[in-house]
């Protein structure tokens, strides 16, 4: 392990606020009586339902099959009966999406296909296929299908696997606890990922505010040939491009992907999911979620089934401690505010943050005073204040020329803006409008 503390350009250091849950072992939330499993939980095409109302399913049974090149299957997270295949408002996008509702029989009977197997003889292709069949996606938040990242085109050789243990979002401690409690599984999953990619160089990047996790992973990785890198605690250290820059000094070209600089980045939680998928053929139907925030009575890290309503998680944490004004799925910097606590936990849900009225007050927007703080903190080298003006004036072409598409929506600009301008909001609007235009063209 090297002692180097590395960093990237820009970024901010928001209050970490991890104290409530960082030393709290992961609790297991029992499977709930009913789960709602959206068929669009990953980046890419939604999966198509293969069950209908009244069907019996077991835990881990296929309920949706991939419907596109970038798509993954979806699985039941409890055993029981399909109560409905319905449309619901997706908690993150707000658009209608198909979902399978399953009433649990309370037995949690695993699907017959799930059993331990010897994966030592697996070829890289077999590993990737097992990962694909298990519906594994990136658990850091973006939920990009993992198998796709592991299948780079031939002309893009990959030399380095980066394992992301930064968890730079304030409040969240799910990855932190996984690293402390399941270091051997993280390491085993990482080895499988390295084998699938055929790379020798493996770097695990962890922020220096998690010394316990660094120690645990370093110990578990003994003799595995990994490098554990201690990184400066700075948001957004866990953003793919920033992590690659900090660990390797390589810059993913504008508009490009990590594989353009020979890297694949996977989250520590994803590594554990990969191990489970390959060694046990068990699909991704549960994950660790940090339930925290000032409006939760007893913040916890919960291992819970995909599709569990947020309300159930909050209830398991002693309920709301007072009036709740805002529920955020994800961390406070990039998370999406939920309109209801009946929203289900998704594969990409790393945390549920409950805020009271005091923390939810939305300040009035003022005029830009050109302080340029947003430019100073932008890790992508953009000028958010200009883009925000372009958004208001609907100057899409100018915004495109000023690389609005490179924005990673980390929120640093809005965080530091003294005029409280919703800069990221304007930028998201520009991006979605530009994508829609391109589609029309």
């Amino acid at each position, binding site marked *: 392990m090297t002692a180097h503390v590395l960093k990237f350009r820009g970024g901010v250091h928001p209050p970490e606020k991890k104290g409530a849950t960082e030393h709290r072992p992961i609790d297991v939330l029992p499977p709930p009586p009913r789960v709602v499993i959206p068929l669009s939980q990953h980046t890419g095409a939604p999966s198509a339902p293969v069950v209908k109302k009244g069907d019996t399913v077991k835990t881990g049974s296929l309920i949706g099959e991939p419907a596109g090149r970038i798509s993954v299957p979806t699985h039941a997270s409890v055993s029981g009966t399909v109560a409905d295949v319905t449309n619901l408002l997706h908690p993150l996008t707000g658009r209608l999406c198909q979902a399978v509702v399953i009433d649990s029989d309370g037995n949690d009977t695993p699907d017959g296909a799930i059993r331990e197997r010897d994966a030592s003889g697996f070829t890289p292709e077999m590993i990737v296929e097992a990962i694909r069949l298990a519906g594994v996606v990136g658990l850091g938040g973006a939920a990009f299908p993992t198998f796709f990242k592991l299948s780079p085109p031939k002309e893009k050789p990959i030399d380095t696997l980066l394992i992301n243990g930064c968890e730079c979002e304030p409040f969240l401690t799910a990855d932190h606890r996984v690293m402390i409690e399941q270091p051997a599984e993280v390491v085993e999953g990482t080895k499988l990922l390295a084998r699938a990619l055929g790379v020798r160089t493996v770097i695990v990047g962890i922020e220096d505010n998690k010394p316990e996790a660094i120690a645990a992973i370093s110990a578990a990785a003994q003799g595995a040939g990994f490098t554990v890198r201690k990184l400066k605690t700075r948001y957004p250290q866990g953003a793919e491009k920033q992590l690659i820059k900090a660990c390797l000094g390589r810059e993913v070209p504008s508009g490009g992907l990590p594989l353009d600089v020979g890297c694949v980045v996977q989250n520590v939680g994803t590594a554990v999911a990969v191990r489970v998928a390959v060694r046990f053929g068990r699909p991704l139907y549960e994950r660790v979620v940090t339930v925290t925030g000032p409006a939760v009575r007893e913040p916890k890290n919960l291992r819970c089934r995909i599709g569990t309503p947020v309300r159930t998680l909050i209830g398991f944490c002693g309920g709301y401690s007072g009036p709740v004004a805002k529920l955020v799925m994800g961390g406070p910097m990039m998370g999406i505010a939920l309109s209801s606590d009946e929203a289900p936990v998704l594969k990409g849900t790393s945390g549920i943050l409950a805020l009271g009225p005091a923390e939810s007050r939305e300040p009035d927007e003022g005029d830009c005073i*050109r302080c340029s703080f947003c430019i100073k903190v932008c890790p992508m*080298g953009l000028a958010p204040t200009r883009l925000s003006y372009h958004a208001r004036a609907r100057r899409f072409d100018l915004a495109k020329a000023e690389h609005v598409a490179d924005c990673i929506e980390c929120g640093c600009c809005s965080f530091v*803006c003294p*005029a409280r301008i919703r800069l990221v909001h304007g930028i998201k609007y520009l991006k979605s409008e530009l994508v829609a235009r391109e589609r029309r063209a």
Partner: protein
Amino acid sequence: MNAAAKPQSERPALLVTVSPHLRAPVSTARIMWLVVAAMLPALAGSIWFFGWPAARTILLSLVSCLGFDALGQSMLGRRVTLRDGSAAITGILLAFNLPPGVPWWLSIVGSAFAMIVAKQMFGGLGHNFVNPALAARAFLMVSWPTQMTTLWLKPAGLSTSGLDAAALGRCTDAVASATPLGVLKNAASLVRSGCSPQDTWEALQSWPALKRLFFGQVGGSLGETSALLLLIGGAFLLVTRVIDWRIPLSYVGAVVILALVLPGHKAGPVQYALFHVLAGGLLLGALFMATDYVTSPLTGRGRLVFGAGCGILTMLIRLWGGYPEGVCYSILLMNVATPLIDRFTRPRLFGARREAKA
């Protein structure tokens, strides 16, 4: 959904807002009032040096800037935002840019021009393209040149030029009542009044005279006289990270380099450079006016260019221009150049692709 699965508490009404859901404890008002705080040493100093007239000018500018800003905002149907402190900054800065003995109405007319014409008519806070206080000063200079350039007051018993009795010697009031930069500029008229310009220049650049410039025992605009008090305020703004060091550094740096290189020194180049840094409104301009966010470039590189441009223009005006002092016009000119500088000093894009060579 399954009613039995839910606890019986009512559904909370949730606020749905865009990310991020966490904000840094900064605000426009906090920044502005920190700038006001940083101007307090120089403000107190001006009252100490010039007494009641200074206090009157500051108070009048401050109150009328607040009043005219509110008036402009309500006339244009904008929200009145006096609490953000920006009008207070302009009020104090405008007073700092006036001779201490100006007639009372001049501060009011200047405030009206600063707030209504320079600021609100161009869109209000954040949209004015020149510094309102400097625009008002320029407006007053061309409209009432006599009142703006002759009503210097003697600070605490000394001469306006900062020269002592020995140096003044054979010279008439013409030297005694001019500012140091005025003396430097108007050498020809000094000869007529019986002084040797050589001697006067030498006296101006002597260590005792420089010391008086540093502490503020010279005549000049209200807020510009004491380099020490301005530096205290500037240091405060740098430490609290309100201002970027690049503009003051490149501004003062350009002036120092030009003073060292250009001819004109009478007592050694170092003293000459120090004279140019300490005399006139250079430090006031470099620390408090050129650093105005609204009218200076967005990026670090742009700010270096901006500061250097201010420094070069200041020296050109001081040495070869029609005015003794060039700080005001140099900053105004660079304000106007800011959009152009911004255009050519974009931040470096992460992962910028190198231009493909054909």
